[in-house]
Structures are given as C-alpha cells and as structure tokens.
C-alpha cells in the first residue's frame, strides 16, 4: 500500500533520513521504533508531505507522493495524528472532529463517521461541547486520533500515541488502535514505548540515526536480543 524507496530527507543541511526503504501492506499495523532523534517523526513528516524527501520515492497505492503538497495528502487517503497531538485547544471536541473532515463535503457521511468516532471513544461523546484544551492528556490523544479518522483515511499515521499518558490509558489507546485496524484501516504507528508497539503490530522497523537497522515480524523482533537490550530495557 505504501512504499518508501531509498528516501533521504534533510532539515537544511542536517541529513535526517539516510536512505530509508520500508513497505506497509493493506490491513497491517506497522510500527517504527527507535530512540529519540532516530528519525521516526521525520519519516512520518516525509510521508505526510510536511518535510518532503530530497531524493527517493514515496509511493502510495502505486502513485508517487513526493511532489504532492501536504494539504493534498489528506484527500489522497492518508491522515495523521501529529506529534504532540496538536488538537485545536480553543475549539470544542465536536469542532475539532469537524475540522478533521475538512476535505470532505458529504454531511451525512461525516455525521456517521462522527458517530463511529464516538463509538470508539465514548469519553469524547461525554465531552462533545467542551473545549479541546480542557481535556485531559488521554482524552486529547483520543481526540487527535478521532480527528485523524474523520477524513476516512485508508492509511492512518500515529505519532507517539502513548506520549505523556498514564499506563492504564496507554493500554486503552493501544486497544483502540487495534480496534480501528480490525475495522479495515491500515496503520503506521511511531512509538518510543517499543514494548507496547511490538505487542499490537504485525511488523516492525527499527530506526537508528536515520537508517533502518532491523526489520521483520513484530513477534520475532520482540524476542531479538539487541532489540530487547536497546529498546525494551531487558538484560
């Protein structure tokens, strides 16, 4: 479904991604794990067009995305819950969700998608008229994911969904991610919490200083000694 072929991305002179190739198949949950500064978020920014690649190809369903501007990526079927959630703090929960459906016009479809988001996140329904900024961290994360779902993406990009959340909420969020996937949305999730991410993903890539150092089945990588040492905190 999505292919990155030898992608190099720069921030000015800084070489952030040094030839990344990865593939995501229809219906999968794929996770990108790695430490701080490994290039996980940059990979997502490259896919979503915010920081386009300097060389290499990004293909979505066979079509190149390299020169598609960021705001058009959404209507191609990819949406993301950005790093740090970035919900609209002064808009209500409902308005945030409506904003997620900005590229769409069919009102009845939007309404039914909103119901679907409320089914996934009943907490959001309780807070529908509350301002985004007044939600707790977990609720804000739910809102960010829900908002990304409102564009009816075929591929959902999640950047650090566990960041800053209590463990019990992390479990809940990951459960919901699996739930969304089982309803047919392909998901690429970037995580520092490697244990959780490997727990729900089908496949995984390990990033280190801008390059992929390991790839494979999530279950296999979980047993991998290097991965355990570096990212799972096991000796």
């Amino acid at each position: 479904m999505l292919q990155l072929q030898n992608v190099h991305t720069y921030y000015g002179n800084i070489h952030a991604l040094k030839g990344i190739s990865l593939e995501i198949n229809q219906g999968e949950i794929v996770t990108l794990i790695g430490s701080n500064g490994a290039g996980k978020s940059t990979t997502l920014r490259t896919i979503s067009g915010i920081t386009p690649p300097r060389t290499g190809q990004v293909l979505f369903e066979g079509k190149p995305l390299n020169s598609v501007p960021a705001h058009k990526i959404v209507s191609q079927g990819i949406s993301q819950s950005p790093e740090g959630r970035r919900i609209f703090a002064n808009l209500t929960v409902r308005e945030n969700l409506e904003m997620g459906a900005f590229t769409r016009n069919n009102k009845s479809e939007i309404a039914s998608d909103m119901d679907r988001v409320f089914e996934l996140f009943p907490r959001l329904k309780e807070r529908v008229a509350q301002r985004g900024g007044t939600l707790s961290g977990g609720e804000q994360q739910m809102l960010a994911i829900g908002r990304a779902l409102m564009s009816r993406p075929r591929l959902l990009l999640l950047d650090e969904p566990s960041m800053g959340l209590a463990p019990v909420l992390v479990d809940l969020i990951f459960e919901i991610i699996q739930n969304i996937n089982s309803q047919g949305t392909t998901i690429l999730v970037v995580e520092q919490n490697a244990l959780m991410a490997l727990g729900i993903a089908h496949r995984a890539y390990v990033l280190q200083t801008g390059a992929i150092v390991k790839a494979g089945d999530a279950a296999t990588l979980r047993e991998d000694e290097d991965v355990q040492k570096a990212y799972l905190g096991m000796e």
Partner: protein
Amino acid sequence: MPNTQRYVKTGGIGFAVGAFFLWNYPNLGIGAALLGGLVIAALCLLYSAPLPDMIKAGLIAGMFGAVMTIVYGTDKPGVAIIAGMLSGLGAGLLVFQRSPQANPKKAAILGAEAGAIAGAWTALALLLTAFVIAPAAGVDAGEFAEHLSETVIFADALGLGSDILILLFAFAFSTLSAAILGAAACAARSLPLRPNIPLLAVIALPVLLIPLIDRAGNLLLLDALIPIYIFILLALGLNIVVGYAGLLDLGYAAFFAIGAYTTAMLSSPHLGINLSFWLVIWVAAAVAAIAGLTLGAPTLPLRGDYLAIVTLGFGEIVPILFRSLGGGPPSGTLTLRFFGMPIGIEQVDLTGGNKGINPISPPHLPFIGDFEPSNKIPWYYLLIVIMGLAIFFINRLRDSRQGRAWMAMREDELAADAMGINVVRTKLLAFSMGAMFSGFGGAFYGAFIGAIFPSSFDFSVSIILLCMVILGGLGNMTGVIIGGLLIQGADKMFIPKGAELFRDIANERASATGSSTVGVSALQDLTQQRLLLFGIVLVVMMLVRPEGLLPNERRKAELHPDDDTINSNSVAAEAESDPSLAA
C-alpha cells in the same frame, strides 16, 4: 471582599476623571469640577452595585444618550430625540446580552424597562442642558428656545407654541421611543430565528431614520456619522485579517489608501480619466485585493511579531509612494538606463504628490443626479447599502468552509495543514479579502471627501482601526461595530463637541467674573488630548477586559484560562503519575 474591591476601583476611576477635569478646566471652578467628578464616581459605583440587569443596561446605554444630548444639546436640543432612540435600542440589546430571555413577551417587558431607563437618562440630560448647561455656556433662555423650536421635529406640526411644551414633548418622545425600541430589540433578539430578520429590522429602523430626523431638525449629524461608518467598514475588513485569520496587520491603512487613490486617479479630471463611480468602486476593491495578495505572498512564512513588522513597513511605504509618484515639476523626461540603453519616460504627475488629487467626481444616479457635497443624505444611504452588503458577505464568509479554515489556521497552522487545509491559499485569501473591503471604503471615502491627500493614510489610521477591532472584541463583528462607534464617535462627535461646550462655558465664566483669561489654552483643549484619552482607555481596557467589550467566545476562553484550572491540573497529575515519560 470582591465587592468592596469593585467599589474602590470604580470609585477610583470616577475620582480620577473628576481630578482630570479639575486640572484641565481650572476656570470652570472647583465646584463644577468636583460636582462632575462626584457624578461620574456615583455612576461608576451605581454600575458596580448589585442592581437588576435592566437598570444597569439602561444606565450604560442611557449614559451615551445623555452625553450625546449634553454635548450637542446647547445649540441642537433636537439631538435628544436621536440620542433617545439609539440609547433605547442599545439598552434593549444590552439587557438581552446580560440576561437572555426565551419568551418574547417577557423580553419585550424587560427591554421596555431598560429602554425607558435609558430614555429617561437622555431626557434628564435634556432638562439639565436646558436649565443648567445652556445658561452656563452663555445661551440665554430666548436663544435656547429658538434652538429648541428649530431642531425638535414635529414641534411645529403639533402646534406646540410654548417652549416648555416643546421641551416636555422632546422629553416624552425621547423616553417613549427609547422604551419602544428597547422592547422591540429585546423581543426580537429572543426570537430563535436565523437569520433574525425582525432584529435586523429593529436595528435598521433608527439607522435609516437618522438622516430624515437630521434634516428635519437641521442637526448636521451626518457630517460626523459618515466618516464614522467608513471607519467601521474598514475595521470590519481588518477584523477578517486579524480577528478571523489571526494575522496581525499594522499597515492596514495602506489598502485604504490604495482604494482611495485608485478612485481618485480613475474618476477625476486629474489624469483625464473620468470613469463612473459605480465602475471605479469595483476597480478600487479589486486593486486593493491584488495589493493584499502582493503583501501576503512575501510574508507567507512569517508569523506574529515578524508579520506585524513587515505589515508596518508596508503601511509606511504606500503613502510615501503616493507622495512621490507625482507633484514634481510639470512635464519633464525621466531617463532610465536599461542595460546601458537610455530610455526616456515622460514624467506624469500620477498622484499629485503632497497636494493630493482634487477634485474627485461624485457618484451619479438617475433621478438624484450627482451626489452633492452639501446634501449628505444620498451619501449616507449609499454607505448603508455598502456596509449592509459587506456585513452580509463577511458573515457568510465566516460561516463558510473558508471561515473554518481561517479559524483552524489561527489556532494551529501545522495542525491545519495536517487536516488538509491549504494554508497558503487560506492566508492569501485573508489578506486579499480584508484588503478588498478597505478598497470599497477607500473608494467611497475618496468620492465623499472629494479630494485625497497622502497624509490621510498615516500609521495612526492603522492603529486607530486596530484599536477599534480590539476594543470591541477581536473576531466578533458586532463587537467591532460597537468598538468603532465608541472610538470614532468619541473622536468625531463627543470630543470635538464637548471641547466646544467646555470652551463656551469657560468663556462665559471668564466674562462673568471679569477675568482677563478668555477661553482655554491649547493645552486644556479636549481635542488636543484625544490621543491621551484613547491611551488611557486602552490601558484600562486591556487590564480590565482584554477580550474586548463584546468578545468572541473563543477569545474569551483564551484570555481567561482560570476557568480551566481543574482540568489542566488533572493533566499535570496524569503526566506525573506516568512512568513512561521517565523511560
């Protein structure tokens, strides 16, 4: 004790105002200044006292009517009728703002009460003018009676021969019309209609009647009202850029200048092009919109303070450009070198330099003919039509997809991008739409004044417009209109007329006591202190009510985060108890 605090604060404001007058007008006598200070302090205290909403609404709205009556009343007592209508309308709207009613009947009663209180204030001010202020300003009873019968409309028709009868009639008319308009406004607002046509009709009624009353009473209010309306139109355009899209523009007067100069160049004998105003106003708006794009394009990556600096520079460049594009020695050849090749360009006096362009052709309509500078009524109605269209259009724009894109961009540009919003387009559209409305304003201004000068488009114009938007309530059109009415009303009506009145009173006192100091010095002239007064008002406003008089809900929430403390605490607690953060 929050209440005591409020009393101290408001009493303090009253005292400060009293002291200001005492210092300012020493020859009014300490007694008069003290009295004025005491009255204002009492009003402030009354306002902060726990009174029913209708009394407060009536009090606030009535104050404006009363001040208007006092400053105009000595030579034009008929103004009390317009002041009464407007304050009644204001009271009705205000009382609904403070205590919304679902039942139109109850709303009508509440509005009538508030309106009657406001109208009574205005009427009392008329009596005060008749018996205290006019004599103090040296207008004797006979002279005042003449003013009264000249300016109070219907007085002749009703055959009110005696002055006292006319005064009583004006008193009753002012109070009654205020009560009726207050009731109508409050009742109309309680109707759950969208768009609320009855409400619009109630507001439109006095607005449309003003020129007729003005003409019947020969009040000459339109001379001040039309420029006020033009500035409100400009502020509405600026509100798109600053309020909706969140782009701080400190050079907005540039677009006003571009609109006005486009009109002047295309519709005057100056360049020999004399197109019809009805065509030129569209050209002016289009040129201003294109200018908005040219400002927007290079500033795309800039935000906040940086954008403000660039727009400030733009606002300075444009009037200078108009100043230098003409007014030089007549005819001559400017030689430019293009890759060494001399090219002669005949120098054309495009803009008239410092002298500006004069005259500009007025609009022409069948039946009415050319709009005359002496008859302001067609101008007034034309401006009302332009403003009505602008308000309608901006309203629709705000509720459209584009409006939502502006809102998202204002909140968080990156997130807006991630939602699939084309941020580049959204920004450019905000600049060009905002500029377009000031193009309309500029075109009308040029034709109305009949001449334009580069000095009319100073930095101070941009700042006054920004003050109107912020004082009224950033992002809220009603707020911006009210902010505009207050600031421009003070600037063009209350302060100059008030200064005149004070000068008359001071002169009268001086001649009565045989003192040699006649009149007031320039330092004591209220008009010289208008910027000082604005400054004080702005400082106080930003401290007391930073969201503006009628805030946009979201802005209010941003500026008063205290209400959210419970939730933000829970966020902090959650982050603390989270071990994954440390990992």
